C-alpha cells in the first residue's frame, strides 16, 4: 500500500497522542478531566451556493429591484403590520428573508452578526472547486491536503477527546480532514457495534492492521464509540419549548447540542445543508413560497432552535455559516439565479458583537458588479474564520490555518 503525505501525517499524529491501549473506563476518566469550559466553534456549510441577496436583502438598494423583477423580496412595510411576504428590516438598508423571522430577535439582541459581500476571492464558479477551496481554506490552491478546521484545532497538551472535532453525516467533510483525529457520525444512536464480542474483535483487527490509514481511522472510531456509550444511554430532551425542525439539518444541530451538553469534549462541529442551487423556480408566486422559502424556513428555525437549546452554553460557542459562492445579481430566464460570486455569512454566539451587518457594501449598479454580473467581494471569508480561530478558539497561529494569507479582524467577537 502506498503511503501519501496525508496518511503519514495523520498516522504520526495519532502515534504521538499515544496511550490508546488504556482501558475504556480509564480513557473516559482522562477525557472527563479535560477543562470544562472549552471554546467551541460550530461551522455550517450551505452547499449549492445559497442566494445571499435574497437571504440578507439589500432593500435600500434600488438596483436590487431592477435586477430581480420577479425574484426580489418586497421592501419592508413602512408602518403598521408586518407583511408576511416582505423583507424584515434590520438596519434601514439590509433586511432578512421573511422566513428568517426566528433570527431577527437574535440580531436585535446583538447575538447575531452578519457579514455581507463576503466569500472566496477565487473566481471559480464551479460548486466542487469553490467548496473545496473554502473547506481547505486555501482558495486557488488545489494541492492542500487538509481542511481549515483540522488545522485550526488548538494544540493539546494532554490527551484530546476523540470527539473534539466531529461532523454529522455519512462522510467526513473536507473542512475536517487532516492529521488531527476527527469523527463523522450519522446519528448518535447508531454510532456503535451492537454485538460487544464482535466489537472487540473488530477493534483488535483495526488497531493491529498494517494498513496505516484504516488503522488510524479505526482507532479514532473505536475511541469515539467508547466515549459515546454513556451518551447513548440517556434520551435527549432539548431545553423547554425548543423544537428543532424535521429533517437532516435540524437533526444535525440537535445532536451537536446534545453532544456539547454531554460534556464529551467537543471543540469543533460541522454540519451541512444542501439544496441551494436554484437555477429554476427559486421562488413561488410570493416571496414566502417556493424552494428558497422552504429551505430558509428549515434553516432559520434550526439555527434558532440551536441557540435556545444551548441557552447559557452559547457563551462559549460561536456558530458560523458559509456557502461556496453567491448567485447572479440578476435573475435568469427561469425565475432562478445562476452561479455568482460574493455572499453573506452569519456569526452567532454569546460573545459575538451582533446586531450589525459587517463588511463594505459594494453596490449593485452595473459598474459595481463583479464581472458585470455578480455581487462584488469586499471581505475575504478567511477574515471571518481567522478572527474566530484566533480570538474565540484562542489559536493564534493563523499562518498555519490559512497559509499565505493574513486575516484582518473585523471585530466580530468581544475580548
Amino acid at each position, binding site marked *: 500500500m502506498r503511503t501519501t503525505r496525508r496518511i503519514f501525517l495523520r498516522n504520526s499524529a495519532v502515534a504521538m497522542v499515544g496511550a490508546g491501549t488504556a482501558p475504556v473506563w480509564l480513557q473516559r476518566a482522562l477525557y472527563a478531566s479535560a477543562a470544562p469550559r472549552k471554546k467551541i466553534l460550530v461551522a455550517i456549510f450551505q452547499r449549492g451556493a445559497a442566494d445571499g441577496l435574497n437571504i440578507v436583502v439589500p432593500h435600500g438598494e434600488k438596483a436590487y429591484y431592477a435586477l430581480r423583477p420577479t425574484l426580489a423580496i418586497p421592501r419592508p412595510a413602512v408602518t403598521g403590520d408586518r407583511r408576511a411576504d416582505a423583507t424584515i428590516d434590520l438596519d434601514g438598508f439590509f433586511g432578512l428573508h421573511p422566513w428568517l423571522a426566528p433570527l431577527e430577535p437574535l440580531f436585535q439582541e446583538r447575538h447575531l452578526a452578519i457579514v455581507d459581500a463576503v466569500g472566496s476571492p477565487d473566481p471559480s464558479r464551479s460548486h466542487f472547486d469553490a467548496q473545496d477551496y473554502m473547506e481547505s481554506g486555501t482558495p486557488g490552491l488545489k*494541492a492542500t491536503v487538509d481542511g481549515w478546521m483540522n488545522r485550526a484545532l488548538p494544540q493539546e497538551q494532554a490527551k484530546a477527546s476523540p470527539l473534539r472535532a466531529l461532523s454529522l453525516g455519512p462522510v467526513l467533510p473536507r473542512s475536517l480532514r487532516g492529521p488531527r483525529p476527527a469523527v463523522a457520525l450519522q446519528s448518535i444512536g*447508531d454510532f456503535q457495534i451492537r454485538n460487544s464480542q464482535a466489537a472487540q*474483535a473488530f477493534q483488535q483487527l483495526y488497531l493491529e492492521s498494517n494498513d496505516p490509514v484504516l488503522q488510524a481511522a479505526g482507532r479514532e472510531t473505536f475511541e469515539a464509540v467508547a466515549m459515546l456509550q454513556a451518551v447513548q444511554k440517556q434520551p435527549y430532551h432539548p431545553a423547554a419549548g425548543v423544537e428543532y425542525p424535521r429533517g437532516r439539518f435540524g437533526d444535525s444541530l440537535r445532536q451537536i447540542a446534545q453532544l456539547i451538553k454531554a460534556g464529551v469534549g467537543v471543540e469543533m462541529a460541522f454540519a451541512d445543508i444542501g439544496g441551494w442551487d436554484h*437555477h429554476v423556480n427559486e421562488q413561488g408566486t410570493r416571496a414566502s413560497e417556493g424552494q428558497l422559502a422552504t429551505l430558509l424556513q428549515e434553516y432559520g428555525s434550526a439555527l434558532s432552535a440551536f441557540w435556545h437549546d444551548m441557552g447559557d452554553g452559547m457563551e462559549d460557542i460561536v456558530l458560523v455559516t458559509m456557502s461556496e459562492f453567491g448567485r447572479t445579481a440578476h435573475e435568469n430566464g427561469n*425565475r432562478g439565479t445562476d452561479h455568482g460570486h460574493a455572499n453573506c455569512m452569519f456569526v452567532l454566539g454569546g460573545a459575538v458583537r451582533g446586531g450589525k451587518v459587517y463588511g463594505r457594501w459594494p453596490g449593485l449598479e452595473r459598474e459595481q458588479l463583479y464581472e458585470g454580473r455578480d455581487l462584488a467581494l469586499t471581505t475575504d471569508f478567511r477574515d471571518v474564520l481567522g478572527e474566530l480561530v484566533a480570538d474565540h478558539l484562542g489559536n493564534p497561529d493563523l499562518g498555519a490555518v490559512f497559509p499565505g494569507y493574513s486575516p484582518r479582524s473585523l471585530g466580530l467577537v468581544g475580548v
Partner: protein
Amino acid sequence: MRGRAAVVLVISLFVSALTGAAASKTRHARRDAHLFQEQIPAEQRIDQALNRLTFGPRPGEAEQVKSTGLKKWIDLQLHPDRMRENPVVAEKLKALDSLAMSSRDLVQNFPAPQMARQMVNGTLPFPADPNRRILIRKLAARPQGEQTQRPDLARLFTPQQLRELRTGTPEQRLAALQAFPPDQQEELIADLPPNVLQGLIPLAPPALRRKLELAAGPQQVVVRDLAEGKLLRAIYSNRQLEEVLVDFWYNHFNVFLDKGADRYLVTAYERDVIRPRVLGKFRDLLEATAKSPAMLFYLDNWQSVGVSAPQAGRGVAVRRGLNENYGRELLELHTLGVDGGYTQKDVTEVARCFTGWTIRQPQQGGEFFFNPRMHDRGAKKVLGVTIPAGGGMEDGEKVLDILARNPATAHFISRKLAMRFVADDPPPALVDRMAKTFLKTNGDLRAVMKTMTDSKEFWSVGAYRSKMKSPLEMVASAVRAVNGEVNSAIGLDNQVAQLGEPLYRKLEPTGYSNSGEEWINSAGLLARMNFALNLANNRVAGVKIDAAPTAQPGAPIAGISLGAPEFQRH
C-alpha cells in the same frame, strides 16, 4: 516499544518540517513512481483483475479465470457481447417490470398521487392494464394528506392473525397475509398500514411483492427497481466489467433521481443512453447524454431560451432566458475538466449553442426535440472556434465535436478511468498513454480500457489493493464473497445508503467521488462493520447466506472478515 516511539517522533518532526513545502509532493511522487514500476507477483494477478474489473471475486472464481486464461478472460470482459450472461440475472430482473418500460409507460403505471387524480378526472391517459386501473382509482381516492382512514382490521382478521400482524416478525406477518385466498389478499393489502407494508416487501414472493409495493406508493417502485437492478446485476452478472462501467459512466454523467420529472426519466437514461455505450465511442455517449430527457431536465437546459430567440419574452407568467447550468457542467464535469482551459465566456457561449435542446412534455416522460423558437441563432465562439450565425440544432453538435476531440477531454476522461481502476492518484505516464489512445482512436473507450489493462502500472505494487471500495463495491463484493442468495435487494440498497452512497441519489452533478478518501471515516467504517455482521448473520432482509464460509480460523464470529480492514480495499 520506546525505540519505536522515538522513531515515530523523529519521523513526525521530519514531516512537520516539510509541512506546506512543495518539496514533499515531488518527493512522494517520485517514490510512488517507483511503486508503479514494480510488478506484483504472478499469483496476485488474477486477484488484481477480479478486484478491479469486477464487483469482487466469488468463491472459486479465481480458479475459473485461471482455467480460461487471464488474458482471454480480460478480453471477454472487454467484449461482454461475446459472453453468455448468467441466466439468473434475467430471472431475477423479470420481477422488476419497470426496468423494461419506456418513460411514458412508467408515468402511467407508477403515477404520483396527483397524477393518479388527473388520470381519473381525464386530463391524463389511463394505463391499459385493468389491474393497474383499479390501483390508480384507489390511489386517486386517497385523502390528500396521506392520512388514510384506520381500517377496521378486526373485520378482516382473526384475533390470532391480528396479533401476528401487529407484533409478529415480518415472516409471521407475511404468513398471516398469505393465509387468505389471492382475491382477498388484494383487499387486505390496500388497507394495511404503511409500516407493515414496508416490512413485508423484501420478504414477499415477486408477484405479491409488486402488489405490496404498489399499495405502499407506486412512485417508489421505479427507484426501488433501479437500485435493485443495479445490485442484482453487480452480484450476479457474468459481464462484470460492463456492470462496473455502467456504474462508472452513470456516475460520470450523474443525474439526481429525485429532481422532479427525473424520477421517471432515469430508468431509460441508464438503460438506453449509458449502458449500450460504455465500451463505445465517447462522442456517441456524450451526445446521447446531451440529448437525453434525464440530463436536459436535471441540468435545466430544456428551459434555456436564447435571449434573441423568437420565443424569448413571450408569455406573461414566465420570462425565459439563458440557463448556464448544463453548459458549465458539460465543460467542467463531462469533458474538459475544471482545469481544461475554458472561460466564463465559453460557458455562456456553449449555453447559447444548446438553446432549443429541450423536452416535449417532460412530466409525462416526453422525449428530446429541438425547438428552433427557443434557439439563439446568433454567431458564437467556443474555445476559439467560431460557430456561424443562422445555425440550429447543429450548433450544439458542433460543440460536442469540439469537446470530444479536445486533448483536455482525452486527459480528463483517461485520468478519471485510471483513478477508478488503478489508483486514487494514478501515475501521469499511464494517463498520458491512455489519453494518446483516446485521441488516436477518436475516443474509443474500449481501446482506452485496453491500454490500461495492458499497462505495467495496472499490475503494479502501487496499484494492488490500494483502492478503498465504494459502498456499492463493498456491499456487492461481500454478498459475492459469501455466495449470498438475493431474493430482494431492497435490504442491500438500504445498506449501501447507510454506508454513504444512496444509489441514484447524488444531488450534485459531480457524482460520487472516485477517490478512496471519501469513504474513510468513522461513520462509514462502523456502518461497514455492522453490515458485515448483519449479512453474515442473515439479518439483511431479502438475502440468505450459508454462514459457514465466513467463520474462519482466527475470526470465529461470522462476518468479522467482511468488516475487517483488508476487505475494505480492492
